[in-house]
């Protein structure tokens, strides 16, 4: 009887292990499948695929640079806007807001993450892009139009609009993780500083200093989110594979190229080139997420496992 019980326990453990392995194994399987499915393009272009600037399905010449550029620049614009806002909200939630206010505010900010990407895209096309085109971009141009960054005639769809949409979409994740790490750092230092006559500003600055590696992790997690974002960006970035200095010009990201062209890929090598783009995106988000997690864990470890995201 006792032995049978032990056997059942072993079987139970094995079954749950199999399910956990199945989920984790998907990551490995994805890499293998994508590597296999990008072999043609990899054989033809080798490593130069990453820095080739041409994307011509008709002549079957492919290179990833315009997409890497578009993903990087739109995500950086998103971060430049989202990071100050997110850290501001986190500081407010941790340092200033009474509990009765911080719970609903953090819930409402997190609701931004519940809105589907395609809905941001719809809003971007019909509300944000016309607004930016008619009122905001002309003003930027009249003030800074001499800079190559703001040249051209903006039609509303382009890198800048994509970056602005991305900033709204990544505020929740950056805020959530930054709030977590700021709550996790010790209170004794800022309180000692306050007791010694420091201002609230200075005490908050100590909290930010102590949590800075975790806050960096939060920012990098936001970057990972922004780079992988697909639908909203596809709908507002204008979808043209080019590298242009102007932020008002249409561009393309890795994710939006796959979304747009995968079903239209007529030749085998065209599809392989798209899958290779996907593999590059996978590797980038993998490295970013792993690095960000290490940073966040470093701060929140005292609170046990399970940092957000």
């Amino acid at each position, binding site marked *: 009887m006792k032995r049978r019980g032990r056997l059942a*326990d072993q079987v139970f453990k094995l079954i749950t292990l199999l399910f956990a392995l*199945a989920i984790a194994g998907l990551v490995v399987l994805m890499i293998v499948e994508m590597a296999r499915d990008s072999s043609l393009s990899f054989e033809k272009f080798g490593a130069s695929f990453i820095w080739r600037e041409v994307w011509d399905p008709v002549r079957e010449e492919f290179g990833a640079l315009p997409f890497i550029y578009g993903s990087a620049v739109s995500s950086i614009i998103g971060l430049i806007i989202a990071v100050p806002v997110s850290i501001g*909200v986190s500081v407010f939630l941790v340092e200033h807001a009474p509990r009765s206010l911080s719970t609903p505010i953090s819930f409402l900010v997190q609701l931004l993450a519940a809105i589907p990407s395609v809905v941001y895209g719809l809003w971007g096309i019909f509300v944000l892009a016309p607004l930016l085109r008619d009122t905001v971009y002309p003003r930027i141009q009249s003030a800074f139009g001499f800079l190559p960054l703001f040249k051209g005639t903006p039609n509303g769809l382009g890198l800048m609009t994509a970056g602005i949409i991305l900033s709204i979409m990544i505020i929740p994740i950056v805020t959530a993780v930054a709030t977590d790490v700021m709550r996790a750092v010790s209170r004794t230092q800022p309180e000692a500083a306050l007791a010694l006559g420091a201002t609230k500003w200075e005490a908050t600055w100590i909290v930010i200093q102590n949590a800075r590696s975790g806050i960096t992790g939060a920012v990098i997690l936001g970057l990972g989110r922004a780079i992988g974002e697909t639908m909203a960006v596809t709908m507002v970035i204008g979808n043209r594979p080019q590298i242009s200095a102007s932020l008002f010009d249409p561009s393309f990201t890795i994710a939006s190229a796959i979304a747009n062209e995968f079903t239209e890929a007529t030749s085998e090598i065209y599809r392989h080139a798209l899958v290779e783009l996907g593999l590059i995106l996978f590797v980038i988000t993998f490295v970013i997420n792993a690095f960000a997690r290490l940073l966040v864990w470093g701060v929140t470890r005292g609170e046990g496992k399970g940092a957000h995201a």
Partner: protein
Amino acid sequence: MTLITGLFSVLAICALLLILGYIALTGARALTIGFLVNMPKPIGEPGSGIANAIAGTLILISIASVIGLPVGILGGLYLAEFGSNRLGNILRFLIDTLTGVPSIIVGVFAWTVMVRPMGHFSALAGGVSLAIIMMPIVARTTEEMIRLVPQSMREAALALGAPVWRMSLGVVLRAAAGGVATGAMLAIARIAGETAPLLFTALSYNYMSTDLNQPIASLTYQIYYYAQSPYDEWHAMAWAATLVLVTMILAINISVKILTRQRYQ
């Protein structure tokens, strides 16, 4: 300084309210009972609806849940009960990685392992890609919820002579059931809004379909499709479909929030 950080908070919430408000106002204009129960009609014909897309989204969610929930819950059970070792840490790391994989990549993956071998787009492939997105989320929330169950309950079950498997399933998992269900609901809300993984798997279908072997419509795909079209009439339908989708997702999120607040206070 309270003022500045407070202003940032107001700014973020304003963004939310502006977007939701616009969806509510614009969506409500085209939203009628007919819109919910009619089938799509050619452009120009009145009385067009999205009944097939609503049904499609529900079917896709069901397929994903049937596959994703058991795998996610049992995988999470392993991480919580037996995963405090090296293997557990590796699995946890890989599962967290999967959470961070962009959903478009999941779509490409589902295409290579499902659509290409089958030779055509299908609801099943769409459901599988959504299940893949769901699994790591469910596994990690299940793990967290199970870890909250007090150790004394495990010891009590074992002391009464229960084998480990009965202790895990009958006592621990049952005690954590509310939390696990909450996690499952949030995962469902998340996949209900996914579009990218459906682009090359479920695709879309202009008629009512319950055949899992055929392409199927979904709310998100329809929103994308209508938004890209040049017709004002379809744009109005995109907004109305968005109102339906967002109401569904927010209802899940808000009810989960209310339920969990009651439990933990």
